[in-house]
């Protein structure tokens, strides 16, 4: 164990003080640079100007944010279900693995972003389309990490279980699946970040709602402050999603470290 931090307030400060200060410093630097007389607002709006855009009802912040969040979380959730599902099939059937995995690797070589316009032709544009794009871009890492986690079981552990005539289901439930959880969580974290990119790309290609759509609208007027605000909100959605995965992971493994 590294050195024990001091208890109480001191401990909280030493743990969070650094990160908070670092963020505040960047914010201050941003404000300072943006306040330079030679800096036009359409190049770099200040934090204050950026926040002020929230007051403009024309931007429909709530509904646009909800649309984008729905696409991100939806695409991510479907990717987790489908990705873990496919990895399970792979681990249960050798044939599925031998046929399916190379196919998936090939499919993953396709830049998912390039599929956007095609998906729009198929589905027309809207929340569903962007959800599908978010899904497509983030489900592969989940399949790969989950499949790797499920395959991780030591051969001797299998012998041990089989010497007790454990069923395939028992081995899965008691050994394989819990053992793969750390892998699944790390796949989900990668996916959480990718899903955000997927949804925004979808909105850029074609949409009539969402923060990505709003960015394109205000870009015409060089309203950089609103664009900044969009980026901030998109980042916050991503951070919340990532934080939720992280929290779930902590809750799952929490008691293990508590001892």
């Amino acid at each position, binding site marked *: 164990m590294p050195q024990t931090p001091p208890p109480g307030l001191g401990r909280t400060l030493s743990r969070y003080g650094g990160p908070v200060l670092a963020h505040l410093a960047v914010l201050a630097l941003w404000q300072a640079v943006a306040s330079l007389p030679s800096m036009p607002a359409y190049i770099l709006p200040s934090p204050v100007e950026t926040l002020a855009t929230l007051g403009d009802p024309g931007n429909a912040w709530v509904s646009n944010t909800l649309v984008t969040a729905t696409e991100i979380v939806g695409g991510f959730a479907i990717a987790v279900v489908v990705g873990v599902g496919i990895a399970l099939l792979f681990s249960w059937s050798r044939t599925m693995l031998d046929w399916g995995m190379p196919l998936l690797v090939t499919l993953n070589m396709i830049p998912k972003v390039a599929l956007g316009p095609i998906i729009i032709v198929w589905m027309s544009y809207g929340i569903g389309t962007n959800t599908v794009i978010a899904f497509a871009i983030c489900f592969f890492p989940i399949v790969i990490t989950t499949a790797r986690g499920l395959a991780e079981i*030591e051969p*001797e*552990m299998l*012998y*041990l*279980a*089989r*010497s*007790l*005539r*454990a069923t395939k289901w*028992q081995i899965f439930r*008691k*050994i394989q699946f*819990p*053992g793969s*959880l750390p892998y699944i969580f790390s796949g989900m974290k990668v996916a959480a970040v990718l899903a955000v990119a997927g949804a925004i790309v979808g909105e850029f290609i074609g949409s009539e709602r969402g923060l990505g759509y709003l960015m394109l609208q205000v870009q015409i007027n060089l309203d950089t402050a609103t664009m900044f605000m969009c980026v901030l909100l998109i980042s916050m959605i991503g951070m919340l999603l990532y934080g939720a995965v992280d929290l779930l992971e902590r809750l799952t*493994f929490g008691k*293990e470290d508590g*001892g």
Partner: protein
Amino acid sequence: MKDAAFIALENVRKVYGAGGSTPYTALSDVTLAVDEGELVSIVGPSGCGKSTLLMILAGLTTHEGGTVRIGTEAAPFDPSRDIGMVFQQALLLNWRTILDNVLLPAELLHLPMKPARDRARALLDLVGLGGQEEKYPRQLSGGQRQRVAIARALIHDPRLIMMDEPFGALDALTREKMNLELLRIWEASGKTILFVTHGISEAVLLGSRIAVMTAGPARMAAAIDVDLPYPRTLDMKTHERFGDYTRQVYDLLGMT
């Protein structure tokens, strides 16, 4: 037919990839009889098929010739309930407490959990880990993990314990300590133990008999009776007779 030994292996032959293009004979002719309650050390050069032999006994792989019998008509052997295994790696599930790790076989076998839990505590006491039931594997040393693995192998009260180089990953001092512990556990439990090892002196110290296997492909060269009294102690290693047995094993392995 011979009298009813607990384990009777006769002319056992194992070919990996039989029928394929590159069959590999791992065991050519293994004959061995083990009585219930014996602790038999199995030694032999790397790759001679010791692990394979245990796999066959555990029913985890087939054999292509000879006969394998465990148990007697009077006391039939239940392969699902009567085998406990310990490997070089402790193979503990790091998300389970030590107690729950020991309980894994009981869960897989659907044994009644309440008595099993009491038994698991008693076994952890037996292996010297009393009071540490709620710890997690990562909080243990290598030797302690192996103790847990031994307790796990005993939880379902199997008649046969098979150990494949169980102390191979431990440092020399811990290993000798574990040898004494194993002897104590064996004497307390009365189990039949097959103990695969690369350590000749470990084999002599532990075994009531030593089965020596030779490579290329494996045969059972001989089984030496080790006529040293139990309880055995580390200072027996300095006895002349201990040296004699050690030399015999080296001779059979063609290493002198």
